[in-house]
């Protein structure tokens, strides 16, 4: 994926989470290219972005389970 594609994603309003993530990749890559980060720092930051996806997935899981249990309680009260 080129930086241009990332800029396009960062500018999108319909997917705020993707725009935020793309903006982060751009900031990290620009700092690496400009000498603000060395290679090991750059690679570590990219690993952190992968970890953010893992955290997002776990958070989504908890929220979905909470919504399901809440729905079951609500139905149980009606029945």
């Amino acid at each position, binding site marked *: 994926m080129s930086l241009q594609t990332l800029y396009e994603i960062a500018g999108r309003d319909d997917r705020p989470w993707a725009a*935020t993530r793309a903006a*982060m990749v751009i*900031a990290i890559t620009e700092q690496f290219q400009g000498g603000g980060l060395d290679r090991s*720092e750059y690679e570590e930051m990219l690993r952190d972005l992968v*970890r*953010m996806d893992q*955290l997002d997935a*776990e958070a989504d899981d*908890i929220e979905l*389970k909470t919504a399901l249990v809440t729905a079951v309680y609500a139905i149980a009260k009606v029945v």
Partner: protein
Amino acid sequence: MKRIFLILSVLMLQGCAAVALSSYIPSFWDDNQSAKIIDLRLTIERIDCKAPQKPQVSRIRDDLEWFRLYSESKGSRQQDVLKLTQPMAETTEDWYKRVSAEGYKENAIYCELKKKVMTEQSTRAAKAVLGRF
């Protein structure tokens, strides 16, 4: 004999149902976990990249360790919040190892980017932890 077999079958089926059902039930609200995850957010928000990084990262590391130990001690139902905070612990551990290395020269740009990533992580984690009932 048939009756015993029938009772055993029903009990075993209930056991399977309980195991299957437990994977759909999240951990419940906990005052201490909720307070600690907000403490973490506050500590991350207040990271000052012009000041020495090691004591600041060490504090985040300790808070995450507290959260892990508390959740583990609370029981197996807490697996979801343990998995949730694991990526944050890894991000922090990498940072701590780097700033603890002998001769490390602090890089404010690296610190600011790390702060940004951890702010996102802690915001998302806090929303999930506080969203439970």
